[in-house]
C-alpha cells in the first residue's frame, strides 16, 4: 500500500473518538438529507408518473403548429405507414397511442359544461396505463359505437349518469360544425384531478367522424419499452420525421410548469440539507483545525527531513477526504437501508390527507424515492465540503516556517 495512504490512515485513527464523532456527523447529515429529499421526491415521482401515463405520455408526436395553436386544424394524418416509420426509427419504440382531442361543449338535460373530448384506442390505453380499470360505474365503450365514458367530476356537474345521453357540440376540423348525441356507458375516476372534471372519452374513429377529421390525430403518444430511452428515441424520431412538419416532444418539454413547481417544492428539503451540512461542516472544520495545530511540529520535521510540501498536503487531503468518504459511505448505506425499510413497510397516511390521496387514485402511503442522484449529490456535497475544509491545513503547510514549527 502506498506510504502516503498508510500515513493518512494511521493519522485518522490517532484520535479514534474524535474521528468517530466527525464521521458520525457526516453520516447523520447524509442520512437525514437523503431521507427528506427522498420522501419529497417520492411523491413527485408518483405525480409525474400519473401525469405521464394519463396525460402527456413519455413522448409525443404533434404537428409542428399544434403546440402554439392546439386546434384540429393542426392535426396530422395517422396511417399504417406512419406507424411503420415510427417503429423503424428505433428498435424499442414500444407502444403507440394515437389520440385526437379538442374542447367541446358537453350538455345534459340540466347543465352544460366545457369538456375535453378525447378519441382514444381503448385497448392501447389500457395496455399503457390501465385506463379501463379506472371505471367506477358502468363499462368502457365499444369501439365504433356512439358511446362515451365521462369523468366522475364532469358527470356530477352535468348531473348525468350511466345510461343517460350526452350531447357534444363544437367545431370540427376546418371550422366544420360538429355535434352528436352519445350514450354514457361508463363513469371513470380519472387520476388527474383537473381531467376528471372535464374529460369525455370516446372511440377514436367515432371522434374522427364527429370532428370531420377522418384519418387524423392530434397527438401520437409513444410509450418506450424502457423509460430511460425516452431521449434516445426522441432523437431518432426527430431524425425520421424532420421533413414531415412533425414535432417530437418529450415529457419534460410537455410539462415545464409542473417540473418548475416540483423543483420549487424541493426547496424545503434542500434548505434542510444546506443547514445540516453547514453545521456538520463546522464540526468537521474544528476536527481538521485541531488535527492540524497539534501536528505543526511534526509537519516541520517532515519538511526538514526532506518531504516536499506538496506531498505533505496530499497526505493531509487524503486524511480529510477519507474521513468524509467513510461518513458518506456509511451514510449512503444506512440511508439506503432506511429507505428500503420504508419501501417494504411504508408510512401510512391517515385522516383527511389519506382520503384526498385515495381520491386522487393513489395509495395512501408516503412513497420514497431511490433516485440515484439523491444519493450521488450527497457524495458530491461532502466531497466539496472536504475540499474546502482541507484548505486550512493546506494554507498552514504552505506557509509553515519549519524552524518556528520545530520550536513549538
Amino acid at each position, binding site marked *: 500500500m502506498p506510504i502516503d495512504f498508510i500515513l493518512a490512515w494511521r493519522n485518522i485513527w490517532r484520535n479514534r473518538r474524535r474521528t468517530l464523532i466527525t464521521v458520525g456527523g457526516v453520516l447523520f447529515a447524509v442520512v437525514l438529507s437523503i431521507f427528506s429529499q427522498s420522501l419529497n421526491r417520492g411523491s413527485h415521482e408518483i405525480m409525474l408518473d400519473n401525469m405521464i401515463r394519463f396525460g402527456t405520455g413519455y413522448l409525443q408526436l404533434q404537428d409542428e403548429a399544434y403546440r402554439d395553436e392546439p386546434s384540429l386544424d393542426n392535426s396530422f394524418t395517422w396511417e399504417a405507414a406512419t406507424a411503420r416509420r415510427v417503429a423503424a426509427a428505433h428498435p424499442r419504440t414500444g407502444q403507440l397511442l394515437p389520440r385526437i382531442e379538442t374542447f367541446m361543449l358537453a350538455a345534459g338535460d340540466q347543465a352544460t359544461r366545457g369538456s375535453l373530448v378525447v378519441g382514444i384506442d381503448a385497448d392501447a390505453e389500457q395496455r399503457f396505463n390501465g385506463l379501463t380499470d379506472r371505471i367506477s360505474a358502468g363499462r368502457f365503450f365499444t369501439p365504433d359505437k356512439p358511446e362515451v365514458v365521462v369523468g366522475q367530476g364532469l358527470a356530477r356537474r352535468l348531473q348525468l349518469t350511466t345510461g343517460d345521453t350526452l350531447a357534444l357540440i363544437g367545431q370540427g376540423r376546418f371550422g366544420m360544425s360538429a355535434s352528436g348525441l352519445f350514450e354514457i356507458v361508463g363513469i371513470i375516476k380519472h387520476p388527474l384531478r383537473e381531467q376528471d372534471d372535464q374529460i369525455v372519452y370516446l372511440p377514436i374513429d367515432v371522434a374522427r367522424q364527429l370532428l370531420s377529421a377522418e384519418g387524423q390525430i392530434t397527438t401520437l403518444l409513444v410509450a418506450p419499452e424502457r423509460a430511460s430511452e425516452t431521449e434516445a428515441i426522441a432523437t431518432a424520431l426527430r431524425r425520421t420525421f424532420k421533413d414531415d412538419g412533425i414535432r417530437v416532444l418529450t415529457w419534460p418539454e410537455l410539462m415545464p410548469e409542473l417540473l418548475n413547481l416540483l423543483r420549487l417544492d424541493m426547496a424545503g428539503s434542500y434548505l434542510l440539507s444546506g443547514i445540516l451540512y453547514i453545521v456538520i461542516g463546522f464540526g468537521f472544520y474544528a476536527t481538521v483545525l485541531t488535527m492540524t495545530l497539534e501536528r505543526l511540529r511534526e509537519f516541520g520535521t517532515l519538511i526538514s*527531513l*526532506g518531504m516536499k510540501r506538496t506531498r505533505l498536503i496530499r497526505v493531509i487531503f487524503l486524511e480529510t477526504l477519507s474521513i468524509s468518504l467513510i461518513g458518506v459511505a456509511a451514510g449512503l448505506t444506512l440511508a439506503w437501508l432506511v429507505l428500503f425499510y420504508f419501501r417494504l413497510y411504508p408510512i401510512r397516511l391517515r385522516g383527511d390527507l389519506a382520503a384526498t390521496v385515495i381520491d386522487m387514485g393513489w395509495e395512501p402511503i408516503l412513497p420514497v424515492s431511490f433516485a440515484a442522484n439523491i444519493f450521488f449529490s450527497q457524495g458530491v456535497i461532502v466531497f466539496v465540503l472536504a475540499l474546502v475544509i482541507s484548505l486550512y491545513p493546506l494554507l498552514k503547510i504552505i506557509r509553515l516556517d519549519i524552524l518556528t514549527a*520545530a520550536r513549538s
Partner: protein
Amino acid sequence: MKPVVMTENLGKVYNPGSIPVTALRNATITIDRGEFTTIVGPSGSGKTTLLNLLGGLDRPTSGSVCINGIDIATLKDPELIDFRLWNIGFVFQHYNLIPVFTARENVAFIMLLQHRNKQQIRERADQLLDEVGLSHRRDVRPAQLSGGEQQRVAVARALATEPKFIIADEPTANLDTAAAMNLLDIMERMNREKQITFVFSTHDQRVIERARRVITLVDGAIVTDRQHAS
C-alpha cells in the same frame, strides 16, 4: 578532497518586530569529510542558529554556505528540501519521530521519499536498526520506546538516506548518562566505519570530551576552534 561544508563570513540577524537580534556573525568554518565536530557555547550563543544554517534549514542574512560544493543560496525552497533529503541527515533534541509509524517505518519512510526499491528499503531499515541495537524493537511505535531508544531510531533514520554528514542539535540533552554515552558510541562507530561526518551541539562536558574538534561560540561569534588529539 572537497570539504563537506564551507562557510564564509556567515551571519544571521533575526528581526522579529523591530529590534534586530544578531545571532551569528562572521562565521567562517570549513568542515572536512570524516570530522566529528561539536559546537559548544552558553545558551543563546548561536549554536542552533549555526547548525540550522549548516544543514540548509535556514538561510543566512549575510555570507555564504556551501554544502557538498553547492551554494545553498542558489537553491529555491523546494530544491533545498530535496537537497536536504539527499545530502544531510538530521537528529533533533526531541527525537521528532513520526508517532504513527513503528521504528522500522520511521526509518523506511525517509527512504521511500527517495523512491528507493522496496526490497532494498526493508533490508536497509532492518540492518540500520540492528546497527543501533534495536532489532528487537523495530515493530514498536515511538511512544513505547525510551528516550534513548527513540534517539537511536532517529540516528538510524538520519543514516538511512546515506547522507555525507549528519547534523545533531543537542542530541543527548534529554538522555540520561548511560543512554547519552551509548548514543555517542554509535555515532563514533558510524563516523569511523562509514566515514560519516558529524556536527553536533551540546552542553555536556562528557560529550565534548569525545569530539575531535570543538568550536566554541560566544554571543554569535566563534571564539575558539580547537582540534583534540585523538
